[in-house]
């Protein structure tokens, strides 16, 4: 927004220098927010550096960065597990090792609430930033974007979707701190981590591996061996969503699964969106043969049933290095990018053509602007909005499709948590005491898909209030349906 309006006037830097007070206040807010989580940020930076360094063999920096990452964990952070621990045991009189001696459920709940509050404060900070910019630093009093934002502000349905999506995004981002235990300790390496519990018979505190404890807290249908939602297992461990058939904590599993599902969805949508925007601008600007070529290419890809191609590719490439990359996520992303760009391109082709017909494009051409500049400056801002609508709708579909694949045993490779696998493992127990294993992941998927659909509707109504959600040409509504359906999974 800032770049497009500030061209002729003094640069943004100049305007801030003239009136620095609101900007400084805003930056200070960010500093406070970063400060309470400083250790986590530092750890993240060092982790990134050591990962990047790991790409080059024999890099001495890797060891240094991973050591720095470990040492950064010492810095107290607000949202860490060590500040508000919920792993403790009941010694007969009271809870030991939990936060303020609280019951683990409440300690965990407190941490979850704090994390969400923190995330929403960041959101508020962004909003304040936008308001500050609009009020103090923007050259124009009014831009068309203001109307879009105002319409979105009164669009309750879209906001509902936004909040739902945000809840899941925070769940994915803060997965290690959110779970009652960590994925590393509970899911991946249960036999190298220990948990303490109080043995009533011998009246002493005993130490067992998490793996042993998991074996004793599996949910297997009958009431005797079942740890349902919001309950404790025999080892005093709290399970907000119950346990899986293996005794692993389901909330931790689902939070880790949210990470991978959303990562696949967002990365593949960014990739497909880039291709789609590029083609939309090029075809709308040059028309003719360029358009025809992309029409044929996209129609051919659209003629392939999405889910079947996914099954085909996952089956044929299973066991190769490509399917092993990042637990199979890289291959899924690649397939989604290749399959989804035509749907996105179809959706923005119409608007792009409309823009290309506008007079100001003609004016810019006669004025001698380069095609590149025209596309970027005069066409792109309009296309992006429409792209967002379909990206949001398609994201829900991708999450369903990934879950459907892992339900079939394809896609993401097994030890990695994925929602579809939880549903599949709980399938025999749906009508038993362990109903939660299948039911809760399904409800979560439904919620996140509703969230993305509602957000898409909201953006559509905000950008194009005449369209009325759902109406439009056959092509559009078909794109809607195909996008939101996840190829029928």
């Amino acid at each position, binding site marked *: 927004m800032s770049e497009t309006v500030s061209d002729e006037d003094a640069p943004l830097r100049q305007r801030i220098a003239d009136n620095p007070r609101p900007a400084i206040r805003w930056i200070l807010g960010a500093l406070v927010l970063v400060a309470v989580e400083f250790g986590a940020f530092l750890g993240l930076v060092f982790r990134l550096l050591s990962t990047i360094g790991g790409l080059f063999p024999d890099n001495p920096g890797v060891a240094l960065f991973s050591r720095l990452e470990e040492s950064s964990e010492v810095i107290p952070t607000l949202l860490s597990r060590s500040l508000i621990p919920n792993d403790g045991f009941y010694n007969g009189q009271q809870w030991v090792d939990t936060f303020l001696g609280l019951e683990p459920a409440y300690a965990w709940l407190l941490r979850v609430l704090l994390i969400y509050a923190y995330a929403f404060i960041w959101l508020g900070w962004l909003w304040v930033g936008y308001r500050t910019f609009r009020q103090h630093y923007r050259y124009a009093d009014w831009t068309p974007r203001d109307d879009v934002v105002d319409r979105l502000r009164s669009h309750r349905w879209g906001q509902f979707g936004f909040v739902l999506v945000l809840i899941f995004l925070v769940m994915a981002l803060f997965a290690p701190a959110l779970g009652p235990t960590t994925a590393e300790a509970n899911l991946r390496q249960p036999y190298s981590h220990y948990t303490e519990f109080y043995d009533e018979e011998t009246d002493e505190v005993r130490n067992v591996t998490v793996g042993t404890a998991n074996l004793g807290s599996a949910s297997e249908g009958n009431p005797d061996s079942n740890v349902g939602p919001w309950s404790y297992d025999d080892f005093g461990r709290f399970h907000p969503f119950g346990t899986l058939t293996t005794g692993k904590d389901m909330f931790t599993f689902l939070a880790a699964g949210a990470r991978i599902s959303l990562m696949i969805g967002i990365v593949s949508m960014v990739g497909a969106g880039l291709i789609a925007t590029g083609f939309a601008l090029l075809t709308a600007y040059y028309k003719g043969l360029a358009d025809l070529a992309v029409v044929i290419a996209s129609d051919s890809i659209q*003629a392939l049933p999405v*889910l079947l191609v996914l*099954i085909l590719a996952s089956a044929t490439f299973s066991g190769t290095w490509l399917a092993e990359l990042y637990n199979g996520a890289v291959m899924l992303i690649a397939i989604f990018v290749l399959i989804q760009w035509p749907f996105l391109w179809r959706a923005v082709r119409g608007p792009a053509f409309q823009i290309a017909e506008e007079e100001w494009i003609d004016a810019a051409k006669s004025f001698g602007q380069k095609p590149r500049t025209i596309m970027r400056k005069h066409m792109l801002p309009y296309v992006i909005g429409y792209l967002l609508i379909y990206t949001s709708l398609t994201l829900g579909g991708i999450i369903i499709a990934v879950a459907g694949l892992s339900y079939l045993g394809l896609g993401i490779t097994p030890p990695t948590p994925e929602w579809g696998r939880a549903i599949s493992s709980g399938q025999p127990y749906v009508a038993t005491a362990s109903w939660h294993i299948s039911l809760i992941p399904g409800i979560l998927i439904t919620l996140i*898909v509703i969230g993305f659909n509602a957000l898409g509707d909201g953006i559509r109504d905000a950008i194009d209030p005449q369209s009325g959600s759902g109406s439009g040409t056959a092509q559009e509504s078909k794109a809607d*349906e195909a996008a939101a359906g996840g190829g*029928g999974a």
Partner: protein
Amino acid sequence: MSRWSYFLRRLVLAIPIVIFGTTITFMLIRLGPIDPAAAIIGLGDPEGLERIRTQLGLNQPLWQQYFDFMIDLFTFNLGQSWVIEPGTSAYALIVSYAPRTIWLGFWSVLIALFVGIPLGFYAGLNPNTGSDYFASFGGIVWRAMPNFWLAIILVTLLVQSQDLLFGFNWAGWLVPTGIVGPPPIDFLAEPLGAITDPVDWWIRKGGDGSFLAALKKIAPAALVLGSASMGNEMRLGRTAVLETINSEYVETARAKGVSSRSIVWKHVFRNALIPLVPIITGEAFLLIGGSVLVETVFGINGLGVLFYDAALNADLPLLGSLMFIFILLIVGLNIVQDLLYTLIDPRVGYEQD
């Protein structure tokens, strides 16, 4: 551009689309690491491997294989299954599996139509009332639920229907049928029975193998498979009715004193149906993709399951043929849809496309 030249252009454009789509299928199948020879006899016998490779033409250069593959498909010479049922022609396999999928697809489209559209119209005629919100929100949730999950829940509910649905026994209701498994559709082989022997054909035949039994058995699966389309049709139906009801000719009719019943049936419904018709053909995407998961959960041995098995077992000729047929189906439906759309609503400009 006239309607017919538009149609012709669509047909001509469809040819490169089918070729390109089939090429992508070939690349997926052949450029992957699958060794069909190993899939057939295993890796233990190197001489046998080599013999089978020569037999299948896998030693030929890739472009040669590509042309053979394309020419075979386009002349409908679909080849033989390698792994699933060696020696059986892919064509015969598809013909024997297809009826159950068609039966499933047919009913899922019908259920979606006859539940989704009336609900949407009802919501559109009573906008912003409690029942509108209920129906609309129901449609949204219905549309967002993953098919396979819905299928699992539904199967459980029906299997345990006596405990979970207040003593209602689904398996024994009307005609005794199982809950999972393929629908008994052999009765379709003798369509004359519908007239000559109506009671037996429609209802009885020992409780199994009649029209009613086959319908009852497929109903849950069809409901699941049609769920996404149902929600979508509801949503579109609602907007379509709302838009028509607020249009000027309805206002005029109302001012003229036309009864509200006549307005609804004559003016609103007919026009509101227009944007819905093409959506129905668009459902093909969801049905073809969704059939794999829904058929897996409900234990129906249809084309979806056949495709899944073929993919897992690397039965390349079968995979290629199935993909080719799906591509033809989707491209064909797209053309029919465009044609239908221009026939139904001449206002829609087909020139701009």
